[in-house]
């Protein structure tokens, strides 16, 4: 079973205690954006086979949203971090590179 540690309350929570929230760090497209940007924001997803940054909510716990870095092939968790950030923190990126040599953060949409 997938176990993520909530960065707020510190509980190592089973996936039954958590609610998945999809891809993290999406840039919100507002009313002023182009159709392409709005479509990308609403529907297009990275869906990587490998390292994935995603949102979770500690639904049956403290109730807060947080972020996790996880491998979608092995379900290996590289770390969790609070939601108040626009990009993954350096220690998470370092941890991923340590375990997945040669991995680089994909930037852009």
């Amino acid at each position: 079973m997938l176990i993520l540690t909530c960065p707020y309350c510190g509980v190592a929570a089973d996936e039954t205690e958590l609610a998945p929230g999809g891809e993290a760090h999406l840039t919100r497209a507002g009313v002023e954006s182009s159709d392409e940007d709005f479509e990308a924001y609403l529907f297009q997803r990275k869906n990587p086979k490998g390292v994935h940054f995603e949102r979770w909510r500690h639904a049956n716990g403290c109730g807060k949203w947080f972020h996790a870095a996880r491998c979608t092939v092995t379900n290996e968790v590289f770390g969790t971090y609070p939601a108040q950030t626009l990009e993954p923190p350096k220690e998470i990126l370092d941890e991923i590179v340590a375990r997945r040599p040669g991995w680089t953060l994909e930037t852009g949409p």
Partner: protein
Amino acid sequence: MRYSAFQIVRQALRGHQGWPRAWGEATAKPRYDAIVIGAGGHGLATAYYLGRNHGVRNVAILEKGWLGGGNTGRNTTIIRSNYLQDPSAAIYEKSRSLYETLSQELNYNIMFSPRGVMMLAQTEHEVRGYRRTAHANALQEVQTEFITPERVKELCPIIETRGPRYPVLGALWQARGGTARHDAVAWGYARGCAEMGMDVIQQCEVTGIRSANGKVKGVTTTKGEIDCDKLAIVVAGHSGVLAEMAGFRLPIESLALQALVSEPIKPCMDVVVMANTVHGYMSQSDKGEMVIGGGADGYNNYTQRGSFHHIEETVRALIETFPMISRLKMLRMWGGIVDMTGDRSPIISKTPMENVFINCGWGTGGFKAIPGSGWATAEMVAKGAPGALAAEFGLDRFREGRFIDESVAAGVAH
């Protein structure tokens, strides 16, 4: 060789030494008119109808693993077409009607069994939803009806219709739905393709897509480079990976969906029962195993395994609906990677790269669509633009907000 009763007798008298291989071991030629990536049901059906309906026979079907080893070999083999929206009803009904004669068409027994599919209504909302679907189906000329709990009990005596948590309030019944042998569908199409001179190349993973001036030139594979005029990507769960090679993104997320089978028991149910409220569905295979489909994971993954608690939830709910299965031992469980779109409807579309076509997004319900999906995709690849069956399933529907929102494709029960 054409299979027939005469051949069975003839080969039996010769000690079964004369049967030829159903499809040969192929090595890739340097160039094809069309390449289909993915030798699952949809990919093979696409290639088959390209040859049969459109005369495009210089075709290769590339498969990274083995033939039909992905979701084609991992589903619960349910065939139905009781969808709400017109475009879905059209393509799924086309598919179901092709299944009816597919054994004759392919000269290969796919064991299509139109035993009837019943979708239980276990809440008042489902009753209203399925009544609406039955009315919509009547207009679409798809034969379904909403039946009473008494009729449910008559058709499937092992159902407990008066359970405390999930009473059966009625059901949407499609008498002409049923099941088929999933491997045989892939094998039958592969044999049909090979007979037309197409190359089914297994253990050949596509690692790159080559293009010039926005137009596809060919693919790079683990068995070398192969050129092609047209390319069809038909790879279900890994669509996103292939789309990235072609330089575009898809409105798709990949999840693991699970199924399991019990030990074989004597015949006890001769219909397919789906219970969407509790995310479970069950039928009995010809071997006697109870085939049970479970829920999908909530988060992206390519594990082909899935979370254990989904199995627990499915089985817990099914035991209340079918009390007699509570002592059954489960033999096997497995997962497949399904590609889910936002509106739970598939994508059959041209792509930003010229002469590259994609068929994906069938989510949790692709098996029932194999013949119709192949038919529509072949038409699109041959003519360069989608025909009537596929027109509504283009990638542009997300930008334009033209969703095909499927209430009965609840994202789980297929």
